[in-house]
């Protein structure tokens, strides 16, 4: 201690920590430049992922463009989620449908879905899972593309959906048959549809995008 007192405290501080500060600045610069170089690619990856999922739903769509942004949807507990609706255009530029991302809480964690609907916003084109963390072997069956759960939504009407434990899964209507052993996950997906679809439709009508 006595040794320190004879020294200027600022000098002592600098002597101890110059390396730390220099490397902090160097590392910061390194990260900033890497970030600058890779950020466009990361953004593109996200768009690609959306397009791939949405393209799988609206098979005729070639490109997706933003149609309406910041649609507030009340997701309960006093929170709102802002939806961005994209329109799918085929090779000739004709409207083939709409796609958007929505989310809700599932069994273990949040479930994020990409939902597709037809051009008139009356029939669904199905959904794809953007991210989920459901129980392997049970809840994660919702992620199986064209599996029995996902295919129930293809062509189903845009209306209040209901969930049943037994029934005919091949019949396409507003009644969804739950995955056995994963009722909570099935409920969560149905709930996402019920919370998001109708408010979005209302908003799009107000914006003049739908007849």
């Amino acid at each position, binding site marked *: 201690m006595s040794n320190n007192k004879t020294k200027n405290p600022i000098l002592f501080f600098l002597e101890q920590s110059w390396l730390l500060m220099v490397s902090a600045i160097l590392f*910061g610069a390194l990260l900033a430049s890497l970030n600058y170089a890779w950020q466009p690619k990361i953004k593109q990856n996200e768009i690609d992922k959306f397009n791939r999922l949405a393209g799988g739903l609206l098979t005729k769509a070639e490109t997706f463009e933003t149609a309406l942004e910041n649609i507030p949807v009340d997701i309960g507990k006093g929170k709102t989620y802002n939806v961005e609706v994209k329109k799918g255009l085929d090779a000739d530029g004709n409207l083939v449908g709409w796609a958007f991302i929505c989310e809700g809480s599932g069994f273990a964690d949040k479930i994020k879905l990409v939902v597709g609907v037809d051009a008139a916003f009356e029939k669904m084109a199905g959904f794809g899972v953007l991210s989920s963390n459901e129980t392997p072997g049970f809840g994660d069956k919702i992620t199986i593309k064209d599996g029995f759960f996902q295919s129930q939504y293809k062509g189903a009407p845009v209306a209040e959906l209901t969930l049943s434990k037994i029934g005919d899964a091949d019949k396409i209507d507003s009644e969804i048959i739950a995955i056995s052993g994963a009722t909570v996950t099935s409920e969560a997906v149905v709930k996402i549809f019920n919370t998001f679809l109708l408010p979005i439709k209302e908003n799009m009508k107000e914006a003049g995008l739908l007849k």
Partner: protein
Amino acid sequence: MDTLQTLLLGFIGIVIVNNLVFTKFLGICPYLGVSGRIDMAFGMGLAVTFVVTLAGTLTWFIDHVFLMQFGLEVMRYLCFILVIAGAVQLVEMYLRKFFPALYESFGIFLPLITTNCAILGLCLFINLWGIDNLLEAVVLSFGAGIGFTIAICIMAGIRENLQLADVPECLKGAPITLITAGILTLAFMGFAGMIR
């Protein structure tokens, strides 16, 4: 009333349903290392609760007030870990100076906490879940600490009894602890889906 409900559900959720140790595998190192005796385990749990509450709140604040405002998300991990390391040092110095008795009882765990994944993990999860108000961040951080304490104390209780059990020679020590932990996660899985 709505916010109170959200907070309460969030708290119970992170203590039991999304317990960091059992569902996210965070904080396993101290969970295996310090769970030999129940009093040590409790001390560790308290120390973690204290630091995680502080760190969770601070990192949320820094993330929202500085990093997101200036588009510096790339510096997030760097800032988070420095905040945690700083918070741990600060707590250690403060305790040593003002509460020597408390420092005696759980001060020895503090240096270990910097590398406890539960702390950084929680800060990252708060960011990932998109928690957007300070109060919720505080409650979740505190809940995570409590959840960790519960997990490590249950484990310590079982291990104290396990010493009397006849465990196959090759499974003594860490292996049997891991297997016990596995069975415990199975029990805690029963809570999953309770809160939506």
